[in-house]
């Protein structure tokens, strides 16, 4: 491949996008990793060769640090030979414009006429409530009030470490319109197992199509959520109004209320 800089006021070519360091198409990337080798010139050479085997050009090991006990950490810069065609990419996204709290409340009042019942929980063994609290609780997050503060929602935050069975039972008891599931711990894909089980249970009970079911967490994408059988997935930076708008629109579109 040839990597060249701009010869004039050339715009980037979206059909073959490469990393940008300080010159168009220079392909510059930074990598850092550790190897289970004692700190030595040989370890540094191993790091360089490894990056080369990744398909990188001109790897330069700028920093090697002895981590002790036979391990070494490296910071490497190299040029990436690969490119992607960005014009061919399709990422599933949640549709619809952003709505404010006021707009969500107005939509629900006008089109549904009663508060929607939302249950939220961090499921399985996961003990992190930060995400579910940020979306549901009055206080919210980053200046955006939680769904508890909306006229359009009756919220129930069940907290953390809620078994999927208990969430389903509670959903029936409270006649939930929507379930919000948070998953933070992703070690060994524990989140996928727990999330998948909930959908299986809802389907077995014939409840899946009767409610909006969404999940969220720092490692959750909309795409992953769809794969797992959820209506939507909310990643980092999500605010209560994003979730509220999605739930309200879904309920209306699917005629669930």
């Amino acid at each position, binding site marked *: 491949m040839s990597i060249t800089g701009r010869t004039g006021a050339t715009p980037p070519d979206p059909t073959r996008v490469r990393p940008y360091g300080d010159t168009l198409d220079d392909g510059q990337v930074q990598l*850092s*990793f*550790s190897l289970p080798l004692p700190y030595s010139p040989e370890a540094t050479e191993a790091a360089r060769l490894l990056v080369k085997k990744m398909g990188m050009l001109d790897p330069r090991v700028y920093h090697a*640090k002895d*981590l*002790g*006990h036979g*391990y070494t*950490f490296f910071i490497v810069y190299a040029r990436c030979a690969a490119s992607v065609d960005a014009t061919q990419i399709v990422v599933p996204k949640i549709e619809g414009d952003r709505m404010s709290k006021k707009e969500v409340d107005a939509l629900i009042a006008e089109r549904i006429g009663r508060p929607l019942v939302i249950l939220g929980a961090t499921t*399985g*063994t*996961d*003990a992190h*409530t*930060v995400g579910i*609290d940020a979306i549901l*609780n009055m*206080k919210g997050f*980053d200046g955006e009030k939680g769904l508890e503060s909306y006229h359009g929602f009756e919220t129930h935050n069940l*907290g*953390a*470490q809620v078994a999927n069975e208990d969430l389903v039972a509670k959903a029936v008891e409270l006649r939930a319109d929507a379930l919000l599931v948070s998953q933070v*711990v*992703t*070690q*060994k894909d*524990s989140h996928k197992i727990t999330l998948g089980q909930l959908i299986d249970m809802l389907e077995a009970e014939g409840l899946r199509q009767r409610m909006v079911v969404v999940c969220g967490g*720092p490692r959750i994408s909309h795409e992953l959520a769809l794969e797992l059988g959820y209506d939507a997935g909310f990643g*980092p930076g999500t605010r209560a109004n994003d979730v509220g708008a999605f739930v309200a629109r879904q309920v209306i579109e699917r005629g669930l209320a």
Partner: protein
Amino acid sequence: MSHETDSKLGLDPAAVASCRVAADAIATDIDGFVRRHTTVAVERTVTRLLGVDGVDADAVPLPNVLVDRLQAAGRLGEGVARPLVAAVAATGREPREVAEAVSAGELDLLAVPEPGEAELRQLGARLAQQAVDRVAANRAERARLQAEMQTHPDPLLYVIVATGNIYEDAVQGVTAAEEGADVIAVIRSTGQSLLDYVPFGATTEGFGGTYATQENFRIMRRALDEASARNGRYAMLCNYCSGLCMPEIAAMGALERLDMMLNDALYGILFRDINPQRTLVDQYFSRMINAWAGVIINTGEDNYLTTDDAIEATHTVLASQFINEALAARCGLVPAQMGLGHAMEMDPMAKDGFLMELAQAQLVRECFPEHRLKYMPPTKYMTGDIFRGLIQDALFNLVGVWTRQGIQLLGMHTEAMHTPHMADRAIAIESAKYVMNNARSLADEVEFKPGGLIRRRAASTVAATVELLTEVRDLGLFEALAQGRFAAVKRSPTGGRGLDGVAERAPDYYNPIEDALRASLRLEA
């Protein structure tokens, strides 16, 4: 701080003193409640310290086998020591052999005739003394090792390992110790706090952490002892003395020479929805064990600032620290063993947020001058932007050294991404060493301007703390928890997990371990 001239914040000593008075009244109330109750976890702990260990054919731990029998017969309130010691007297076997015989169905624990009360108590006291002596020997061994080796100035550098596999944890712990970490904490598998038994043996599978088992404690201790000897610096080992098995973990830690334990009086109630009565009884016994073992406890007030707003809720942290201090003192813990927790969790984009964080850290330091304060890093506002994260952690380290915190849990720039990689930890340790060494004597040089933002912030936090503690004292701790005064979480005294494991003590309740600990710690009988 005894008088105002010692205070860089110009704190009103009378206000601080009134916090202590209120917290002491709260602790007195709880003390009375605890002395009238026991729990399945307390009783299982008694069996462990009397030497019971192992599991039955269905992998049920033998301490559970014994205590479940007692509970099923409605006799939990008598204490397990009574039938267990009676069985030792009747059979001439060791407590562990008695447990094995009960589990094999060869012996009915509850049908063994009791010897006379004097004989029972004499034998019980002898067995309990062996346990207390064994723990004392571990404590002496720690003191010997520490005296031989170098110590790092406070704040101690505290890092976590959390691979799920104890053998991998050992490798990570050893590298961290080599890089300069003073304390290695093995994070527990998520969910263990809600198990009403302690898993057995070495484990290699966990989620978000590694199971706390006695064998895992042993494996880590051995690895860190070897690293300590090589490095000439004693590496402390920390684990989680919390959840439904709080006192059992304390016993296991005491037997395996752990040095530090997360051991909060309220954490399980607020953040794991464990029943308040259960937790308050369990924390008391676990802390007596930790006190005798020379363990430094860490309390969990830092968590209040992740569920509540860190700028608005600093007084709840301070109030809880006073309560934790008062409760811990009743269990024989001395200030040097109290790692009262707090955190740097304010929104990093807040104007003058650094000044408010500095004010809070200095305030906690001055309220608890002899305590080994545990300072927790930013987590709530860590984003996955590792470059910004490194700067947040650098500012956190600056506050830590400036305000002379006791234990600095090093922030990870990869917080909110994954459990730390080996290199993440190395970068965090290197950066902490740089900042702390570079600013080591800053505290000696800087005073805070009278009437300035920092002093005003500290004074208003103290005022709000006095108010909150007074309210909690008037309500009683149980009612205050029910009303959601801490961490914006409401917990009823009869709600949550584990209430069925609480029993009122019968008039003939017998716990020789508690008796021996009270005597050794010179606590009121």
